[in-house]
């Protein structure tokens, strides 16, 4: 159920007895712009590092240790046209502890402390902390190159999208760092606190009343409720974009990006999920069976859909010289899907796997909260699992074929070795 704390700030409490912990996620959502991913990522690092009351990492982490090792971290993600900063706290349920004071209430107070009173003096973030976290972020950007799978995925994203806000990683990019100062970041922080749409999500053996009471200390001001569409619907050009890079690597990465027109909980969403499962989402999929099992060309070859942006990506790790062959096989699998050439058994299996995955997502506090949040920002309410599952059951083979026919290859990125 939802409790409105003020305009644009909502508390969602999901009571269940099955976990030994209480998990809290505070999500702050802003429109994604070319220039805000970097500053919000830096902001997230600063909020996680120290605060006015806990001016060093040691002080902050000691407080969390005192709360029976409550875990606390911040994170940023992109969803469609939104940039989301998350404060995430996990704490042991009071009933397993012999404390007299409620550890849950103390944890909520901790979140309030670090979110509303960061380490700021005279309108600017603490300079030393700022400088160090900015250097760390610079190092992090430079380390993306070290993880070749990540590097190839980011290169494909940049190649595929025309819109600069969509091109850049959710954690931002190096060239923006120089423009950010302790003072400008504090202004970004205030803007976030005043304007972002906030959802507070809590799961555990708790009641809505006790949480509503605990969160009363949060002094959010009212803000304009979201009117803008969270889905990114920008179309890419007609031409397929291609790029090849050569680096001294042992394994080549061939990554492909497609337009799908499949959006989260739109009418074709359920058929889209079945399509993805059949095409490259599961070990019984066409990509796994053909690229890996039949031809021994790869260890991994799989597809993922981003239903907030209407796209699909395929990732493979192969020998560089096999790239044309692998691309041909992938294209052939898509063609077969478009012609309705997939087995009844695999079709039914995919539905079973999707349903299994949905039920399982309720068994992990983090996964459950992420699903609920996606529901809320896309549809404004929590979609009952039964309803979701019924819609998967109703998908026909013709629906899947329809989805396949609207999928088109738009970008190809190849990272290969010097000797390939």
């Amino acid at each position, binding site marked *: 159920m939802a409790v409105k704390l003020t305009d644009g700030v909502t508390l969602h409490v999901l009571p269940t007895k099955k976990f030994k912990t209480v998990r809290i996620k505070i999500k702050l959502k802003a429109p994604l712009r070319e220039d805000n991913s970097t500053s919000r990522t830096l902001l997230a690092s600063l909020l996680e590092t120290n605060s006015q009351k806990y001016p060093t990492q040691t002080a902050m982490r000691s407080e*969390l*240790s005192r709360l029976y090792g409550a875990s606390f971290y911040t994170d940023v993600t992109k969803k469609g046209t939104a940039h989301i900063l998350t404060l995430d706290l996990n704490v042991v349920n009071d009933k397993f502890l012999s404390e007299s004071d409620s550890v849950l209430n103390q944890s909520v107070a901790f979140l309030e402390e670090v979110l509303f009173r960061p380490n700021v003096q005279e309108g600017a973030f603490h300079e030393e902390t700022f400088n160090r976290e900015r250097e760390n972020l610079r190092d992090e950007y430079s380390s993306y190159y070290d993880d070749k799978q990540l590097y190839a995925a980011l290169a494909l994203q940049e190649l595929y999208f025309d819109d600069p806000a969509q091109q850049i990683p959710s954690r931002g990019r190096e060239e923006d760092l120089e423009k950010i100062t302790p003072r400008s970041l504090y202004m970004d922080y205030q803007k976030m606190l005043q304007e972002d749409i906030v959802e507070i999500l809590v799961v555990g053996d708790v009641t809505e009343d006790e949480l509503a009471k605990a969160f009363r200390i949060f002094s959010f001001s009212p803000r304009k409720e979201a009117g803008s569409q969270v889905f990114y619907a920008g179309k890419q050009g007609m031409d397929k974009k291609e790029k090849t890079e050569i680096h001294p690597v042992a394994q080549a990465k061939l990554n492909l990006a497609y337009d799908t027109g499949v959006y989260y909980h739109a009418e074709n969403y359920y058929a889209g999920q079945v399509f993805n499962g059949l095409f490259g989402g599961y070990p019984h999929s066409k990509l796994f069976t053909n690229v890996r099992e039949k031809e021994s060309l790869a260890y991994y070859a799989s597809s993922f859909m981003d239903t907030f942006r209407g796209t699909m990506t395929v990732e493979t790790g192969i020998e560089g010289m096999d790239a044309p062959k692998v691309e041909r096989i992938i294209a052939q699998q898509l063609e077969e899907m478009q012609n309705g050439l997939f087995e009844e058994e695999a079709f039914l299996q995919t539905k079973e796997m999707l349903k299994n995955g949905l039920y399982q997502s309720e068994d992990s506090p983090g996964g459950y909260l992420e699903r609920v949040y996606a529901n809320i920002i896309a549809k404004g309410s929590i979609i009952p699992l039964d309803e979701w599952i019924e819609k998967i059951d109703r998908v026909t083979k013709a629906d899947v074929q329809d989805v396949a026919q609207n999928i088109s290859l738009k970008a190809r990125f190849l990272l290969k070795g010097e000797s390939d």
Partner: protein
Amino acid sequence: MEIKRYEQLDEVLYTDKLENGLTIKLLPKKGFHKTFALFSTDYGSIDNEFIPLGENAQIRVPDGIAHFLEHKLFEKEEGDVFQVFGKYGASANAFTSFSKTAYLFSSTNRVKDNLETLLDFVQEPYFTDKTVEKEKGIIAQEIRMYDDSPDWRLLFGLLENLYPNHPANTDIAGTVDSIQQITSELLYTCYRTFYHPGNMTLTVIGNIDPEEVHGWIQANQSKKEFPPFTAIQRFLPGTELENVEPFRSIEMPVNRPKAIVGIKGTRPHKEDASDLRFRIGMDLLLKMLFGPTSANYLKLYDSGLIDDSFSYEFSYERSFDFLSVGGDTKDPDGLTDVLKEILLSAKNSPEMTEENFELVKKRSIGQMLQAMNSIEYLAHQFIEADYGEANVFDIVPIMEDITLEELQELADCYMKAPVLSAFHILPRGEDQ
């Protein structure tokens, strides 16, 4: 079945050993949709030299064969086992470590069908020369993927230093060359020796009725015949006396240099509750020295020698253990010097105060309770290593009981310069 209640944690564990030798562990979890099953054998990448079941002579098999076998068990004459699990809506997987191989599924319905599929596919091998040849291309790509992973190379660089003559120095998947020597015949030899029920454990956790599940397993196993189990004879070089390579570095196509420092253990494993206490003690000790509330961590972080990639771990495997600490750094030499100094003077470290100890303990207990939310975590803990009668539910009571003096003693015994080593990965063209 033996029933053990853990009142404080609100858990009940059911265990049994079947006539054929199979160990069963069942843990019902109320309110969960999911059931998770893990069928594991006490066999991993280090078990390269042994006497095959029913024979007298010791043999040496190619590196990576345990992992290769894991891949090949999924393929049957009638097709891929993933298809069968898929039909029942289950997701299946498997993994091989230094000393274990495990097969698993998670599902939200048809638990009986899935459980029988799991037992049957692992207990009915089908290896042919053709399917073995085909797998070599797939596994070669898996190995190449890891060859490009700096974190993986960093860890194995350290292990090569620490264990020059021990199979722990080799990638679990073997090498592209070593897997070429694998044949279907060799797979059968390993299979017969290490996949006897007497060497295996089935762990089922989740939305189950333990009596019912026990009945299913028993019925399934009673239909199959196995020769009597005899203890497996493995041959591993000792880890305590060999030389340690104190330092090496390599170059890779990376932007950020990386450094890791490690120490290998020399205390023989007893495979009882004292091992679990030892492991917990080492975990707590490392948390005191390098954890987020330590002055060491703050100093290293503030000086820019470490960033969020910094991590430390105590790894405890059958017959060997080691600690490792490190991450990305702008100054690999500087970081290595500081880490060595902290480790070798751990016993008298200013971090080792009662106040810090209580804080780390409290945090560790809370983190343990948090981890127990996860069915997968629990299942993995049950098979992780042999602690005799002790298991994951004993961790919190042991943590409560352990003393600072114990940690000081551990530090004194473990942190020895001759068994310490460091390894660096440098961006291409920057090596001396």
